């Protein structure tokens, strides 16, 4: 049976590629009607009967329950803020980029509904700095939404006030971490903060704050349209609804595919993305962005279920970026490039990440360049154990944010699946140098 997408969040941009980002197209395709419906409900109704009931979980990477996150706001403490996370930087994830450029009003409508539900009067959409066109279209959309009375004072006669600000980042992966984002939004270096206090309690300007991903807020109008309980019927187990998967690498048709959760990796990679290109064999895949441990061909029939991938496969669906590598790929080369990414993007606040990411990159670099030592993989695991105690997913960490343990994902994956291949690339002549902690 052919695999088909379930286009909910991506429907408008697929059906109206010529003008999906304009307010004219948005209004002509039912836009802002769910805002009207939400404003007729009490905020608690939107939160409980719609978003909580839908089972919606964050689409940025952590997969935390959206309604649950909202419910952590301490009662009676104001002002509250909403920050929409559009700082998409997880390698090979390109879904939010598409949503920002091609359906900005959907983000804004979702953000207004979310702000109403959490009783925030100021919302910020943090857009990755490199998305110049995306920021431009979002700003235009905000301007048009103000002009139409969807944002501003007394929205649609409801008495609810909201200001929305589009805020551009300036080049820092770590700004995509929710507390890093808040530091950045306050005009600082995007350094993450220790939790607790969680942003819900002390976030932006030390006030209660909700940070939700772009795809997450884009889904909210559809939850209202379908009804929370109806939305929850889509998907599998605690992974309800659809997700947009960004498939890239050695596939025939790389792209974003929105599918119901519970389909398999094979459905996605072979059914939709056309399989490994040039008729080659699959060597390995990275299922959820650079931070996720790798999977192998034997995992192709596993379901895209967030908890299943975490618990049974010791990886994660993360940001929904599925990278596919063919039989000719050198896994050490891929691991090195990811290590270089983490080393460049480590903010420097926590020593294990700052120093660890640097050394992981240096050691993998020498292996890739034929100067590896037979004990190098064990050396990496030895000091990596100080970043990720136990070296087993789900990762424990000695750092403030998840970038620290993410640096070890490529290394743990090499050890798990390609140990012999790594050792074969290491030069035996360099043996005899002691390994710390061995």
């Amino acid at each position, binding site marked *: 049976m052919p695999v088909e997408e379930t286009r909910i969040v991506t429907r408008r941009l697929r059906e109206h590629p010529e003008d999906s980002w304009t307010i004219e197209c948005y209004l002509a395709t039912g836009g802002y009607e769910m805002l009207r419906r939400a404003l007729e409900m009490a905020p608690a109704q939107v939160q409980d009967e719609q978003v909580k009931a839908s089972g919606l979980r964050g689409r940025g990477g952590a997969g935390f329950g959206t309604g649950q996150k909202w419910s952590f706001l301490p009662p009676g403490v104001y002002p509250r803020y909403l920050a929409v996370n559009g700082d998409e*930087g997880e390698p090979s994830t390109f879904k939010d980029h598409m949503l920002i450029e091609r359906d900005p009003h959907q983000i804004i409508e979702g953000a207004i509904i979310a702000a109403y539900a959490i009783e925030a009067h100021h919302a910020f959409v943090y857009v990755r700095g*490199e998305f110049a066109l995306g920021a431009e279209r979002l700003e235009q959309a905000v301007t048009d939404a103000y002009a139409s009375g969807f944002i501003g004072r007394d929205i649609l006669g409801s008495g609810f006030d909201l200001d929305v600000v589009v805020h551009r980042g300036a080049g820092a992966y770590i700004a995509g971490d929710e507390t890093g984002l808040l530091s950045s939004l306050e*005009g600082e270096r995007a350094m993450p903060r220790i939790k607790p206090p969680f942003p819900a309690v002390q976030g932006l300007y030390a006030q209660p704050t909700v940070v939700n991903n772009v795809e997450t807020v884009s889904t909210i109008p559809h939850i209202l349209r379908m009804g929370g309980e109806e939305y929850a019927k889509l998907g599998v187990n605690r992974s309800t609804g659809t997700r947009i998967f960004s498939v890239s690498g050695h596939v025939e048709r790389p792209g974003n595919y929105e599918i119901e959760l519970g389909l398999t990796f094979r459905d996605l990679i072979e059914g939709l993305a056309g399989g490994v290109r040039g008729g080659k064999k699959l060597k390995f895949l990275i299922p959820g962005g650079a931070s996720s441990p790798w999977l192998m061909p034997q995992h192709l029939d596993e379901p895209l279920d967030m908890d299943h991938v975490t618990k049974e496969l010791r990886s994660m669906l993360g940001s929904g970026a599925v990278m596919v590598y063919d039989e000719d790929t050198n896994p050490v*080369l891929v691991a090195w490039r990811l290590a270089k990414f983490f080393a460049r993007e480590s903010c420097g606040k926590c020593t294990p990440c700052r120093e660890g990411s640097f050394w992981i990159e240096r050691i993998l670099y020498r292996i890739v360049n034929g100067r590896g030592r037979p004990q190098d993989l064990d050396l990496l695991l030895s000091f990596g154990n100080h970043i990720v105690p136990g070296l087993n997913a789900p990762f424990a960490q000695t750092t403030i944010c998840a970038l620290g343990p993410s640096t070890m994902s490529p290394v743990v994956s090499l050890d798990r699946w390609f140990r012999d291949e790594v050792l074969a690339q290491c030069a035996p002549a360099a043996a005899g140098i002691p390994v710390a902690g061995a």
Partner: protein
Amino acid sequence: MPFTPENRAKAREIVALYPYARSATLPLLHLAQDQDGWVTNEAVAEVADLVGADAAQVHGVRSFYTMYKRESPVGFVVSVCTNVTCLVTGGPELYETLAAEYADQPEVLVEEVECLAACDCAPVFQVNYDFHGPATPESARAVIEEYRTGVRTPRGVSGGRSV
């Protein structure tokens, strides 16, 4: 140079969008870079004054974010991705070829950057934050030259429109 009167007015409008002026730091640094082609020490001081921060704090922000240029003014930032999808589709060759080609032309800054979130078009590059791809060294060179000769209209060096 200091903000032009128009950009200074725009800077004040941006500051007014936020509950606390300090939040306008990043957007104002973008504005300065779009105007001058880099973020000068003078711009840092002026932005600090506008957002009520110490200049040292704004220096710290400028040097933390990769989009802000502080070595010399540039006309075109060419950002070439070599992260893992571009890695296996020709990104490193694209970067090396363009970097060598424009090495002696200070107007064009060729940078190796991290994933630009356009992996379905790998290998990708940007010119002043407008996307192009999939690219070969030849097609990329042609696109860059179209910006330089005015066939294409470039954004500012920080990706803004009003320079």
